[in-house]
């Protein structure tokens, strides 16, 4: 697995962590330990996303760095996974 794929998988892992902890927090909204761990996962996911996007381009339309050009099409399409 190349560096890009590895980074992407780490982001997916922290995003999954946020979803799973989010479900727990829906029924335990004041659990301080869960809130703390959720925050940590979110920070980690954000940190890795920024790192990924700096190196390999945007992961979503929410974070296009340059308003004057459409960088979305510069990165490989999903079916060009090996590109």
């Amino acid at each position, binding site marked *: 697995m190349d560096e890009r794929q590895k980074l992407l998988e780490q982001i997916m892992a922290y995003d*999954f962590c946020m979803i799973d902890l989010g479900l*727990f927090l829906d029924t*335990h909204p004041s659990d301080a330990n869960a809130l703390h761990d959720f925050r940590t996962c979110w920070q980690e996911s954000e940190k890795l996303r920024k790192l990924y996007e700096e190196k390999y381009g945007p992961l979503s339309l929410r974070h296009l760095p340059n308003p004057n050009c459409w960088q979305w099409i510069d990165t490989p399409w999903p079916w060009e996974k090996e590109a």
Partner: protein
Amino acid sequence: MKSKEAVDAVVIYAGNSCSGTAIGIPVMPESPQLAQAYVPYQVYMGILPAMEGLRKGTVFPELYRPYPSK
């Protein structure tokens, strides 16, 4: 049916501390009724490392129950 003494009496706080007072919820009802289904209230025991959670399909170690392989 379990006797009342056998029912787990642990109480945890579930109210939203940002918008109201905390309320106690028993892990299981104190007087479970016949023909009613109950789900024990989960108690936070920490989470797995993120990558391990992704592979296992849950970040909660107590919820990871793979089917035994034949």
